């Protein structure tokens, strides 16, 4: 089964049709998706601004992480769940949307950026944990994160206009 066929089957499944055609279900899921976006990406942004040295300069980076990571995760989980439901009910349209493809690529890149930062860059964190402005590698991770999330948000919003 090709990817397109999987998407078609998802869109035409009972659940997919029910979500798509219900008066309130779709807007409610979409509303939750937007609120979760605000709180989770908003929290990531604060973390990125710390890495860039624009905010919370006098706070060690490890402490920033300890404080906000556990509050970001529920937000991202809600975004993933609602996002999957929204995709489910219009999978075929999403498959054919250039903005959806851009969004998926940007999401993957954002994931790679996070993994690289945690597995590689953070190994030497002890040396720059309290630095007001962290080294270039860490600053780049923050910059990429902001740019990629901006692309994800923009593509996600523009997607709806092509449906």
């Amino acid at each position: 089964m090709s990817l397109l066929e999987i998407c078609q089957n998802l869109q035409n499944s009972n659940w997919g049709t029910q979500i798509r055609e219900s008066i309130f279900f779709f807007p409610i899921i979409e509303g939750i998706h937007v609120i979760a976006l605000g709180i989770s990406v908003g929290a990531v942004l604060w973390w990125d601004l710390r890495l860039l040295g624009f905010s919370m300069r006098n706070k060690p980076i490890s402490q920033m992480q300890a404080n906000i990571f556990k509050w970001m995760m529920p937000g991202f989980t809600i975004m993933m769940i609602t996002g999957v439901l929204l995709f489910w009910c219009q999978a075929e349209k999403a498959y054919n949307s250039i903005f959806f493809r851009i969004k998926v690529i940007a999401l993957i890149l954002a994931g790679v950026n996070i993994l690289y930062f945690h597995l590689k860059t953070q190994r030497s964190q002890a040396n720059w944990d309290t630095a007001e402005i962290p080294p270039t590698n860490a600053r780049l991770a923050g910059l990429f994160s902001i740019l990629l999330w901006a692309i994800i948000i923009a593509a996600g919003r523009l997607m709806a206009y092509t449906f």
Partner: protein
Amino acid sequence: MLNGGRILAMRFAKLTVAVLTVLIFSSFMAQDLLAQTGSITGTIIDTDGKKVPYVNVTATNLASGEDKVAITGDAGTYKIEGLAPGDYKVSMAVQGFVIPEVPNVTLGATEAKQLNFTLAMTFTERMVRKTWPFFNWSEETWLGNVIRNHQYPFAVIEVVHLFGLTLLLGGIFLMSLRLFGLIMRDMPLSQVARQLGWISLLGLVVMAVTGVSLFASEALKCYNNNMYWYKMAFFFPATIFHFTLYRKVTRSDNSQPFLRGLTGFLALFLWFGVAVFGRAIGYF
């Protein structure tokens, strides 16, 4: 020359047509005589004497529970026909008016009852209608015309509006966590507020500028969209709250934990409300 058989056939045909005609007419008459239904008609005006269109008037037969509905037109009149004799409950549904209590109506056979109503406009509806010229003006502004008449500006501004939302909600959410004492406990509240304040303020400014632009391009659509009014019902209190109580409490290092908790809760409640109804405008 016609032969005898054809003449007979033609007579038979004529007779059939005559009998059928009589049967059809008498059946109409019989139906009228047997059914003997009544009707309820009337005019609905408001307290200023203006006709009220789009009122759903329902007559419910108290014995059978059967409903019959009519809607008033531009002339404010309605007519519910085909009502069997009996007792009826008459009810109305219309937005923006106070619905009066209507005593039950007893309808006799073939009776045409006239029920006129005068409805009082609700305070909210009166206020909303007063704002209509502003909405009309907004849509005619240069900004409104430019955005409405081009393909891309609306979508692009909408994206930037969403960027603003991320900054605003992110800042508010993190600040609320600090107000609840859940994060950054070792940092004084006022210091966290200084670090987060500009993020939410920037978000608010971005949202305001883009929001006004989006509004100008479809002001009249907003005027007729309930979700828009719900959003505003959250937005104005949220903004006033943001620059008064919220500002004061987040900048103070010795406020009561209860007051902090309340402030955090109010901030989340008000801004989430703005976000949810803002998103909903597009669906209604």
